[in-house]
């Protein structure tokens, strides 16, 4: 069974970040919710960011669970 997150997990830059022992969720929280907001010509509204983040949160929790299951089997 494949989840949309499989594509992300096989990305080498994600692996690098994991090796650097960064929490994926913390990273997303910083990049999506914080940082200086400059009104470029195209920007994502704050309301949208909350929705994306909640979606990611749910997705990541399920990935964590899946990883634990895989570890136990392995």
């Amino acid at each position, binding site marked *: 069974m494949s989840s*949309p997150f499989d594509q992300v997990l096989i990305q080498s830059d994600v692996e690098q970040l994991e090796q650097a022992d960064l929490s*994926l969720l913390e990273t*997303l929280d*910083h990049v999506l919710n914080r940082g200086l907001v400059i009104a470029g010509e*195209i*920007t994502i509204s704050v309301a949208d960011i909350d929705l994306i983040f909640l979606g990611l949160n749910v997705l990541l929790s399920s990935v964590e669970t899946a990883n634990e299951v895989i570890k136990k089997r392995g």
Partner: protein
Amino acid sequence: MSDLAYYVYCIVESAATAELPGDSLPPAIEHGATLEWVATQDLAALTSQVSLVSYSEESLNHHLSDPSWIAERAMRHETIAEFVAKRVAVVPLRFGTIFLERAGIEQMLSDKREELRAILERVRGREEWAVNVICDQSMLMSSITSVSPVLRDLTERAAQASPGQSYLIQKKIDALRVDEARDALNRIIDEVEQTLAAKSDDAKRLRMLKVETTEYGEMKAKFAFLVKKSEFDQFSDAAERLAREHQSAGVGLEFGGPWPAYNFTGLKKDEFSV
């Protein structure tokens, strides 16, 4: 009109770009694109070109419903901001800042020159550290019973009372324990904030979008501190002391960092005053 736009990652002083040539930097947000500095006299924005097929308002909105699309790109954004922050003072921008023309970035750099320079001064030589307060509720509850005189007294009375009375006293004990545990936790959270704020240049309590559970318990508060690199040892000593002190009450501290100063890119309260 070109079908390309500019994605902007972060802003530094123009002079600092000499230490960060484009070909030394991590990969851009989209494969195949190269990172490029767009500079004015004293400020420079780190950018790469993106296709409007993916980054137009309409496509971006469409991609927003695809968490894997966002996650992958948010990671690249962070890798770049972190790489730059390790070397020079930087203003990290939030994900998804896009300009249609190079001239638009130059205009922004000159329009916001004062504000950007103020942020660069504030974050120079400093890093952001995250501190999360985690609580093991059952450990906290049992530590409360052992330290609260009211609860100890009630527990003794319940032991000697008739079954009916004992049941009622037990109900009261349960309600009191919940209240006292909450108060105790809030006192610890305040202490963490005040102690670490005193060891840093700025502190922010961050909102939590949902209850986050970690392997050590539930996250109860989330802070970001702006710490001078040269004073990190004092900060981390204080944090470790707090962690040891409250361990037996089931309250733990989780540290993360160093981050680019994402949470300190707004103006400080006192800088708003005229």
